[in-house]
């Protein structure tokens, strides 16, 4: 077993994990943070997207022991970081129908956080490229793109 110390959504966190576990196992099973979803488990669908040291990664492909000393941001950390309510990006998904069954949504939102931190005013093409690794089987993507565009135009980036 490995003991890992890392920052989860701004809070210093210590956990004991099997060395062969993945970050998504650590988040969901060990720490009970079930906002992050597992879809394919092979890095194809993006439902498990979280930010590690500020970059979007597939938590199903990320070895849990590798988070030692790193900063992890999950969907739970967006609303919490503001103290109340949803983040503007999350609210934009709600207002623009960017969510339907909801399973892909946490990954979509986290991928969009990564995009908007790097590019405050993305074009539609930028958004499509940023979401290449995120599958949605309900919406047809249009409302998701519109949600991200709305968040970007409402603020200087949906998260802040």
């Amino acid at each position, binding site marked *: 077993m*490995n003991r890992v110390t890392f920052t989860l959504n701004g809070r210093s966190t210590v956990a004991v994990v*099997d*060395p*062969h576990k*993945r970050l998504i196992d650590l988040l969901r099973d060990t720490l009970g943070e079930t906002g992050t979803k597992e879809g394919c*488990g*092979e*890095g*194809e669908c*993006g439902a498990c*997207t979280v930010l590690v040291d500020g*970059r*979007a*990664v*597939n938590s*199903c*492909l*990320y*070895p849990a*022991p*590798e988070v*030692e000393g790193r900063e992890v941001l999950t969907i739970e950390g967006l609303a919490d970081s503001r103290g109340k309510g949803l983040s503007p990006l999350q609210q934009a998904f709600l207002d623009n129908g960017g969510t339907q069954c909801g399973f892909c949504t946490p990954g979509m939102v986290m*991928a969009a956080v*990564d*995009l908007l931190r790097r590019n405050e005013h993305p074009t539609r093409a930028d958004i499509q*490229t*940023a979401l*290449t*690794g*995120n599958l949605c089987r309900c919406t047809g993507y249009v409302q998701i793109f519109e949600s991200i565009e709305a968040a970007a135009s409402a603020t200087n980036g949906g998260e802040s």
Partner: protein
Amino acid sequence: MTTLTYQRPTSLREALETGGSDGARFVSGGTDLMVQRRSGRSGTENLVSLRRVEELAGIDWKNDQLRIGAAVPLAGIGADQRIARDFPALAQAIAALGSVQIRNVATLGGNLCNASPAADTAPALLAYEARIEIANTGGTRTVGLDEFFTGPGSTVLQPGELLTAILLDARQSAGSAFMRLGRVRMDLAIASAAALVEIEDNRCTHARVAVGAVAPTPLRLSAVEEILEGKAPDGPTLAKAQAAVDALISPISDLRASARHRRRITPVLVARALEAAISMATGDAQ
């Protein structure tokens, strides 16, 4: 339950000593290995992570010589303006590889060591005549990338050896490009091609052509290069080069495409990569 250890060395020496032990395997981004483990294709017992090894983490220029550390994430290479300018085919290949999430962790060293015949970065690096730096506890050696792959999933790496860097020389007057066909963006290539040319006085003085996903390894097409060199980069020359591709490749049929389809599209990809490279070399694209 599998008993694995996961170690995080911070220096090359520590990584080589740890990785040289029985049952150890190096892992960098892990985007291939984690999937292989899940599907039972990898029975690895002890993983040695390369993500914190300082000597593998840099992009360094010395004049026109570029050294890319094996564990630099692809996103970092793709964001490098000078690499985009001097090695556009590599930047294009990286942009075509996987998703943002994959490129944030996957590495150039990992893409080569996984040794998929379809590895997107391989044809581009072959066209640039990349050299591979390999280290073990006894020292380092360098091999050409065209000697690195020995078959699907296999390379010249010996147990305990580690690919430490990819070495490239920029050819300032060259034009180069990468082309790829996939079913969708997030899929392995059905076929890919990269080309590099230098043109002087309407004559092709230097040509390098490589293809992916159509042979047991990524493949340099020397016979195509010979057709191009010394000739005017015009329609008849390109037609001859395109016609020579078929005899050099040995594609298989798999779930992505039939061998017959790959034989039809690969010459087209080669011709398109050459056209883009010629256009860049002659300044048409600027």
